[in-house]
Every structure is written in C-alpha cells, then in structure tokens.
C-alpha cells in the first residue's frame, strides 16, 4: 500500500467535493436532457439557465418535515439512506483521475471497489424493510435479488480485465491502458460490465427497485425530506461512480485513445490537467448514456431481469473469462 501523503488528502478532498457536486450537476443534467429528449425546455427559471435548480431542490428537501412511519423501525429508517451515500463516497479513494493523481493505491483496489459497491444494497433493502410499507418491501426485495444476481457478472467482467494486467491495483489497471484500451481487447467483457453497471446503479431498464409505475417509489416510497434527498443524491452519485468505473476498467481511464503511440511527453502540470479533463469528459459521456437510456427504454420485468442475469450474463462472463485466460496462457504466453 502506498504511503499516504499530502497529495492524497488534497485529491481525496477535491474528489469528494466534486462527487457531491457532480450529483447535483447530474440531477440538473438529467432534467435538461430529459426535457431535450421530450421536446421540452426544462428548468430555466432559477438562476442562469436554471442552473440553481438542484440547489433549490436540496434546500427545499432540507426544510421539509421528516416523516417516519408509525410502525416502521425508526433507527433503521434513519440509517438506511446514509449507507448508499457513504459507500458511494468511499469508492473515490482508489480511483485514479490522472497519472499519479489518486488518493491511495491499494494493492487489492479492485476487491475493495467490488466490496464497497455491493454494500450499498443494504441501504436499499433496509429502507424497504424499515418503512413498514408493502411497496417499499417489494422494492427492497427486488433490490437485494437484483444486486446479488448482477454482482457476479460484474465481478467476472472485472476479473477478465485483471488477468490482462496481472495486478489487483486500480492504478495499475489504468496505467496498462495507455495504448490499448481494454474495450478493444475485451469487448464482450465491456458490454457485460456496462449492463451489470446499469443494473447495479438501479437505472432503467433495471430500475425495478423504484419502478415508479408499479411500486410508486419502491424502497423510498415512505421517505421524505432529506432522507429521500440522500437516496436521490446517492442514486446520481452511483451513476457517476459507475461511469467512472466503466472508464477506469474499459475505456482507458485518463488516457486518450492510443495515447502511448502518439502523445508526446508533457510537463507534469499540463499532463495532470489533460488527464483529469479526459477522465471527466469520458465520465460525462457515460453519465449522458445513463440518462439517455433512462428516458428512452422501457423497464424489464422482475423475472426477466433474473433470467438475463443468471442464464445469459453469468455464463457469458465466465466463458469470456476462460477464453481470455486460455488465450493469454497458451498464445501470448
């Protein structure tokens, strides 16, 4: 494990701050993109271009009455929204935003990411259970089942990347993509990872956990005020985080395409700025993809999600892993 330096704290602080902001920006972006897709205008009354809309939302949510259902479990009901937020914030610790720009380099960073990411489901499930509402309960159960089903293909897809690098460190994975992004070497893995990431972040077409049309709000039906606001922000943070993971594992992290072949040596400052810009740009694209898909595609049914996860994605990801491993072992050597 790398030494914790002052840089680590600065990067971590900036990253956490930007992640919180990015959630707000994503909320705004979602409303604008949705409006664009639907031939509408979108928020434009608050501040320039309606940019202050998320702030208005958050202030309003903060000052709203907080309700706990009478027969709900008050402690869990309060704790549940914290979990997804905290786990989302924890993930940024190991993600490299540029060459040498990362909070810490854990040698088992991939495992850490997978472990932390799978924790957030507890928040959703507990929220569903502690609300004492049937709609929430159904939402929570769906969340638990869905998360478990899609953790596996997600993990296998990541594993198929790890064997290229030969290291569990996220920083090494990012470094290894300087010339060849893993999406070119391992396209099937990338597709599986994207699908599983959509499922992990509970976004359409996998948003059965919320399922506004069937379950009203799913797990957060009974949440009001800032507790709901935290779920709301956590959802968007997870969108951002999952976009970052896609970028990190498959789309070259902070590297420009085939950067190793043509990019000249740059001064550390310029290189740092370029890296972070490239990383943010790619992340923004995937966030847009998330929003785009959300507003155009219908939602799966529960049994279809399960079927897709267990009978298609999981075998496919295992086969993909074995084939890559075989190729690497026998051919590349």
């Amino acid at each position, binding site marked *: 494990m790398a030494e914790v330096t002052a840089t680590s704290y600065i990067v971590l602080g900036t990253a956490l701050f930007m992640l919180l902001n990015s959630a707000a920006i994503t909320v705004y972006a979602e409303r604008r993109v949705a*409006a664009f897709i639907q031939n509408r205008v979108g928020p434009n009354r608050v501040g320039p271009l309606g940019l202050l809309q998320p702030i208005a939302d958050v*202030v309003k949510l903060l000052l709203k009455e907080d309700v706990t259902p009478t027969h709900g479990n008050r402690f869990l009901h309060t704790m549940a929204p914290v979990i997804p937020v905290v786990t989302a914030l924890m993930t940024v610790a190991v993600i490299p935003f540029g060459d040498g720009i990362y909070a810490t380099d854990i040698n088992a960073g991939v495992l850490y990411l997978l472990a932390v990411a799978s924790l957030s489901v507890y928040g959703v499930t507990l929220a569903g259970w502690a609300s004492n509402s049937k709609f929430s309960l159904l939402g929570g159960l769906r969340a638990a089942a869905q998360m478990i089903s899609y953790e596996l293909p997600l993990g296998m897809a990541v594993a198929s990347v790890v064997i290229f690098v030969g290291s569990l460190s996220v920083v090494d994975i990012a470094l290894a993509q300087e010339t060849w992004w893993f999406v070119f070497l391992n396209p099937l893995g990338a597709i599986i990872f994207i699908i599983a990431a959509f499922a992990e972040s509970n976004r359409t077409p996998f948003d059965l956990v919320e399922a506004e049309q069937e379950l009203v709000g799913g797990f957060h039906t009974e949440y009001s005020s800032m507790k*709901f606001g935290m779920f709301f922000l956590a959802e968007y943070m997870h969108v951002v985080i999952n976009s970052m993971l896609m970028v990190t594992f498959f789309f070259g992290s902070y590297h420009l395409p085939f950067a190793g072949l043509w990019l000249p040596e740059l001064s550390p400052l310029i290189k740092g700025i370029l890296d972070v810009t490239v990383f943010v740009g790619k992340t923004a694209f995937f966030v847009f993809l998330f929003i785009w898909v959300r507003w155009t595609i219908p939602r799966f049914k529960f049994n279809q999600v399960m079927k897709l996860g267990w009978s298609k994605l999981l075998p496919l990801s295992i086969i993909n892993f074995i084939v890559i491993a075989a190729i690497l072992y026998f051919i590349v050597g």
Partner: protein
Amino acid sequence: MGLESALGKGYLTTRMDTLVNWARSNAAWPMPMGLACCAIEMMAFAGPRYDVSRFGSEVMRFSPRQADVMIVAGWCTYKMSHAIRRIWDQMPDPKWCIAMGACASTGGMHRCYGVVQGADNFLPVDAYISGCPPRPDAVIHALMKIQDKIKAEHSVLLDT
C-alpha cells in the same frame, strides 16, 4: 442578538425567509391527484407545449411523502374523498393544494348524490382554478399563484 442589531431588525430572518421561500417556490413538486378529465389536462400541463418543468415542478412524485403541492384534478366522490384526505395527511409540511377545475372547486356540473360539492369540504385549498376542464395555462397560472403565496410566507420567525 448582536448581528440583528448591527444589520437592522429582522434582517437575518428576512434573508433566511427569502432563501427558504425561494427554494420552496421553485421546487414545488406536484402530487398529481388525477381523478377525472382534468387529469388529462394535468398531463398536458407537464407535456411538451406547456412544460411545467420550466418552473422546476415537473418532478411528479406519486408518493405523497415527497410531494409539496397536491393538484386535485377532477370531481371528488364521497368514496374517493377518504383516500384523498388520507394522502393529504401523509404529505409532510409545508404543503399546498390546488383544486383544479369546477368539480374539485365546487362540485361543478356534478350536482348529485355521489360527489362532494367542493374539495374544500375536507381539504384546505390554496388555489382554485375555474374551467371544465381548465386549460393547462390556467394550471400554470395557479402554480405561479402558489409560488407567490409561498414567497409571501414567514417561515423562519413567524412574529418578526
């Protein structure tokens, strides 16, 4: 308070009120209580031509816990009124109510045994909209009236 005396009486609370009211009025998420014909116009009100999202109110929350403005669109029957009242009670404060259309406001043309003659018999209504059904512009007007009302409220310190 020292700050108060330095900045003038009620300065801080007034500023706070302005901020709070600004946030509340610009993020009034509607609870669409779509009952009858007016519900269709309420959809149009969120649709592409009228687009209520400009006012930050396009987030239709079907869960009463997360909504701020309840739009009662359509006639309230006695049987339904219990459900409406229950949903109103489930909405957290602060909350506002729009009675959309003649039927919700007064019973309108449905002057008969099944219909409560006006939603204000069991709900505190803030804005009434005339029309049967009202055009979406009228609904937006009512929403703006609610925004005006919110902006005139003293929520931080009630008596200064």
